[in-house]
């Protein structure tokens, strides 16, 4: 509860015009989304030649009906899906139109209802809460009130999102009596009352069950607090305990009054419906449930009120020396962090994430590897081989493709020679080229003269592309201090650094002897 709300609650003792007006304004803000509804949905719904449905339906009525439908549906489930809600709403809207003898396309009506629902959940504003500014006369300040009427709740079930009424939603529907004690159990009682009065005893039974669960949950919370008092009293805030106890006492009296009234209501109904056997039975069951609920709530109050005593029983531990290196409990840390102002939380968050998450892999920019990647991508694109396809039109001239002088056979021969020579022991490039110029091979003379060039090409490819070198098990080391000038048989001059070639293949020796 913010300081402002506390002032509002305590406001009765020091009432002035300013506080009263502010309170009324603040409470009435809750109705604003509903009042705004007709203004927000202004466009024509449906086709031009059809009657404009907006002029014929009561949008406010539909809005409150939506709230009621959700309140009813959520009695026995956590939330209601959009489709479900619209399904229930549709016949109600249809009835409105029938009263005026207006025929409407079902889809147009559905569309309209969808818009009503979307407005109530603030879909246009990304399902965020409605937010209104108002003037606080007592403090001479402006405040913003943010709230939902219908809120999407996470259930983890099904494919659709579920919606439920918020406290504000219940308040908007059950009247403008906004009070802080409208907690889950009290609202539950309101629901039960509604259901009994409508004769839906089955649903009322479910609601009592839910109320019981609420009690259990609160009891669990109390148990957790007690456990942490016993285990680690440092982590528990004494003031928090007192607050819990006070809160518990206040709430419990109120809930008890409510439950008592409900009990009477049920007994009343029992008398009235004394002739229907089944209904009587159910009402009796309901009365029993309510009684149990009452007992449970009393127990809970007792537990809550015992908490301060528990705390003082264990308080001697507070003076114990703390052992070094003990972590604060995650609970404490989280609670503190949630209470941090958002700017600071953001600063802490940035640091936290940096220190907590593993170091990031930072890709380094390298032009070489990028060109490599592009190259490979291009190769893949051309892999279909369509440029070598036969051209079949008779009239068309065949395009001459570039035929490389160093053809596959020649390169193969060079590779074979390279392998055989390198396999034995490391060899210098100049030796290799001389060897390529000399020996007779099954090649023609013309190709024979190109063999040294093919050999040089093979070696260079391996120098440029290390993957190729790995494939051929070649290791190439430039000899920085030696230069070569070599006249090749076809009249070309090879010059440059000397390279030392050696084989890295484990079985290179064996292959060499085999081939020899």
């Amino acid at each position, binding site marked *: 509860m913010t300081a402002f709300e506390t002032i509002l609650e305590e406001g009765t003792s020091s009432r002035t015009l300013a506080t009263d007006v502010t309170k009324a304004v603040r409470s009435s803000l809750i109705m604003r989304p509903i009042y705004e509804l007709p203004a927000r949905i202004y466009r024509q719904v449906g086709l031009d030649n059809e009657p404009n449905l907006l002029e014929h339906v009561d949008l406010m009525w539909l809005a409150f009906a939506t709230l009621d439908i959700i309140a009813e549906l959520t009695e026995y489930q956590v939330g209601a899906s959009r489709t479900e809600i619209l399904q229930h709403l549709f016949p109600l809207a249809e009835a409105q139109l029938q009263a005026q003898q207006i025929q409407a396309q079902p889809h147009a009506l559905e569309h309209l209802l969808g818009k009503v629902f979307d407005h109530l959940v603030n879909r246009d504003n990304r399902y965020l809460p409605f937010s209104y500014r108002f003037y606080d006369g007592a403090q001479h300040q402006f405040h913003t009130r943010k709230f939902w009427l219908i809120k999407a709740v996470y259930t983890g079930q099904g494919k659709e999102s579920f919606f439920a009424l918020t406290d504000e939603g219940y308040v908007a529907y059950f009247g403008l009596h906004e009070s802080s004690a409208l907690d889950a159990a009290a609202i539950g009682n309101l629901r039960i009352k509604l259901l009994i009065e409508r004769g839906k005893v089955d649903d009322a039974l479910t609601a009592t069950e839910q109320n019981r669960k609420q009690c259990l949950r609160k009891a669990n919370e109390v148990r957790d607090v007690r456990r942490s008092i016993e285990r680690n009293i440092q982590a528990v805030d004494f003031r928090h305990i007192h607050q819990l106890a006070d809160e518990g006492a206040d709430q419990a009296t109120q809930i008890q009054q409510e439950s008592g009234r409900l009990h009477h209501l049920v007994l009343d109904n029992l008398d009235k419906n004394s002739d229907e056997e089944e209904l009587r039975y159910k009402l009796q069951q309901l009365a029993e449930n309510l009684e149990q609920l009452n007992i449970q709530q009393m127990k809970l109050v007792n537990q809550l009120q015992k908490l301060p005593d528990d705390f003082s029983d264990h308080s001697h531990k507070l003076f114990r020396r703390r052992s070094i290196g003990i972590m604060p409990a995650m609970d404490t840390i989280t609670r503190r962090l*949630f209470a941090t102002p958002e700017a*600071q939380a953001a600063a802490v968050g940035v640091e936290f994430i940096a220190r*907590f998450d593993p170091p990031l892999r930072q890709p380094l920019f390298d032009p070489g590897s990028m060109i490599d990647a592009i190259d490979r991508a291009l190769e893949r694109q051309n892999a279909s081989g369509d440029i070598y396809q036969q051209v079949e039109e008779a009239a068309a001239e065949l395009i001459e493709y570039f035929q490389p002088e160093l053809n596959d056979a020649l390169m193969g021969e060079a590779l074979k020679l390279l392998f055989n020579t390198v396999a034995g022991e490391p060899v210098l490039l100049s030796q290799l080229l001389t060897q390529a110029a000399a020996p007779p091979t099954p090649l023609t003379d013309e190709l024979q003269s190109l063999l040294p060039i093919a050999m040089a090409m093979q070696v260079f490819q391996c120098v440029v592309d290390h993957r190729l070198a790995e494939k051929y098990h070649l290791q190439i080391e430039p000899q920085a201090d030696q230069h070569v000038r070599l006249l090749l048989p076809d009249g070309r001059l090879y010059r440059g650094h000397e390279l030392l070639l050696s084989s890295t293949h484990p079985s290179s020796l064996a292959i060499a002897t085999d081939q020899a």
Partner: protein
Amino acid sequence: MTYFDEESFHQANRLIYLSLIYSNGNRRALSQYMEEMTELLQKFRSSEPFQQLVEAGLKAMELQILTITNDGLRLSARHANSFFATTLTDYGKMLARSDNKAADLLCVHCAIATALFPNETDLDAPVEDLGVVMVDDIIQVLRRFADQEQKLPAEDDILDPQVRTAAQRIRELPEENPDSKRAGAGASWLALINRVLEHLVSTDYLLAFEDHQEEAIEYRPTPAYQAALRQAAVYAFHSFRNVATGQDPQLKTSATAPDEEPESPQLTEQPETEVN
């Protein structure tokens, strides 16, 4: 100054390099270096000069050791301005969103941790005993903490009521956004949680198990997560205390020279065990 041979420098850097791979959660990339890693770790454990060398290297790279496991050193950035620091942009890249807010992510991180380690002793317990969490549990924790600061007693109210708190930010987000698949749908609790969980799984901090019957994913913590959290949580807690007492050295200096952590990395052994 202790004498180091050239080999030691090489090995120290090698250990940092391999640990970076390991910390990134890339098991496949690391598998070919496993033998080398084991040797380096042995040297790291046995030789103190070598340890100092590695630590100096890590410090120079603005990294810190979170824990030491049998598979390598778990590293993280020393502070937010480090070159290796994970940033909000990284979360953004992952889901092609750029609307991440550090305060929200921090809350979600803490909620996940609180769901996994409800008690302080859990931070030291073997991870096998800790059980699993599902998105539902984390939502429960967020629900519990979202109105937390409202319950803080008035005297504890260090803040001007006009100042928005982290909890308030969370309170004003919807739990689930039915339009989440549309562009610009806006954040929700569920979206934030999934973003953080996805990142934690991809970096090997959490293990995800899919339960086909329930169609829900169960998350289990790893020792690395526990160790990382222990350090980060201590940081977060201290920085809050500084906010509360008005002196705020961490946040003021973090932009310029955020160094000199009071607590040294814990050099305790933590066998990394598979949880299945």
